[in-house]
Structures are given as C-alpha cells and as structure tokens.
C-alpha cells in the first residue's frame, strides 16, 4: 500500500523525532543509572580495594609494613584501576590517590578525597591484637575544608560501622 506524499513525509519526520527522543531518553537513563544506581562509591571503592590482607599462607604478617611504598610495589587494588599511594602526611587530592596510615601491626587506615562530593573519606581496618583473625572495618568522612591525609584515620576518629554516602 502506497501512502500519499504528505503522509510519507509525516511518517519520516515522526520516525526521526521518535529516534531522537529515544536517544535522549537513553542518555538521561545513563546519567540517572550512574548517579543513583551505581556500584560502590568512587573514593570509597578505591579505599576498599586499597585495604591489604595481613595474611600470607595462613601466617599473620601484620599491617604496619603496608606503607605507601609497599602498596605501590605490590600494585594493591590494581584490578580496580591505577591507584597512587602516598604517605600519611601527604594529602589525597583525588579519589584514586590514597593517603596511607600504617599505624601498627593491627591497625591500618587510609584517606581518599572525593571529587564527587568534595569530602574526604576514611577507612580503618582494626584487628584484635589478641587474635588478629578477628577485627572490623570502620568508615569516616571529613568535610572538604581540612587536608585529606591518612594521618587523620585512627581508631579514635574512624568509628562508623556503615559506609557514608558519597
């Protein structure tokens, strides 16, 4: 069946407009999905993959040797993406730059600055000194005003059991 010339034009312009609207809807859905239905938050996901394991072949090796240099050497968290590790007095200025605070064999902390929220996120792995098989991971955050340094991640300051929203 042949459509009249005017109807053919209408069908063509409707198809083009429909395709453009669909493209726009996909673009909007892409942003909504990334903003509100994303996986682990960005700076916090960098911190999570930065936490090293103190166990080697079943032996407890402690956390204090996991300094920035050591984490860089072993490419800690490389499966997530390139992460720069800096010492506890050097501020993190971006999500994939983790300021490391290797406190003692049972305590290890780190900080990373989020570009998304302009806040500093902290993580702390605190193991039981009498039985390092047990321990917990704690979370914290600082406002964007202070320096985002690993030295601020201590047992006294990082006490949240839940990850803060990023």
């Amino acid at each position, binding site marked *: 069946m042949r459509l009249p010339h005017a109807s053919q034009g209408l069908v063509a*312009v409707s198809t083009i407009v429909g395709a453009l609207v669909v493209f726009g809807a996909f*673009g909007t859905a892409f942003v909504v999905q990334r*903003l509100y239905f994303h996986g682990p938050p960005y700076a916090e996901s960098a911190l999570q993959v930065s936490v090293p394991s103190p166990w080697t072949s079943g032996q407890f090796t402690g956390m204090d040797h996991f300094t920035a240099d050591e984490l860089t050497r072993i490419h800690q968290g490389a499966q997530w993406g390139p992460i720069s590790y800096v010492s506890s007095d050097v501020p993190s200025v971006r999500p994939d730059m983790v300021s490391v605070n290797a406190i003692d064999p049972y305590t290890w902390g780190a900080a990373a600055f989020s570009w998304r929220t302009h806040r500093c996120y902290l993580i702390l792995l605190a193991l039981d000194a009498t039985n390092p098989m047990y321990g917990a991971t704690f979370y914290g955050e600082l406002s964007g005003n202070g320096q985002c340094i690993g030295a601020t991640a201590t047992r006294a300051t990082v006490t949240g059991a839940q990850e803060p929203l990023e």
Partner: protein
Amino acid sequence: MKSIGLVLTLRVSGILWGTDTDVLLSASTPMIAWIAVVVLWVEIGALIATFVLRYRTQRRSLTPVLLVGAAGLVINLAGYIVLLPAIAMGF
C-alpha cells in the same frame, strides 16, 4: 550525500557527548552531570524543531538540519577538549 553527513555528524556528536558525560560523572559533581543532560535535550530539541519546521514548510533541503547537528557537534567537541586532561588520566 548530505544525509550521510548528517548521520555521521549525529553519530560522532553522540559518542562525544557520551564520553564527556562519562568523565563528568566520574570526576565531577552530580549537578554538572545534570547540566550535560540539559545540553543533550537542548541539542535534541533544536534538531526536532528543525526537522518539524522543514516538514511544515515542505522544504527538501537538509542544510538547516546539518547546520544544527554541526553546532551540537562543536559544543560536544568543545566539552571533549576541555575534559581532555581528565580523559587522559583515565576518568
């Protein structure tokens, strides 16, 4: 020939918008990402308006649509150039 040019322009423009927005989502605030969405809809709105106007005036030339598409491409390309350092850093 113009229709192929238009399709290519819109395709490249779409890829650039996707790259720009991806970087903005990783390295910036949600507000900036929403501005990228507004820009997308303004570009789409301009294209739709041009297509509808072309239909209503019964014109056959694709030049106005091509010009609007090219303007969108320039905007998205400008965003890409501005964001190039962040793109190079892998964000």
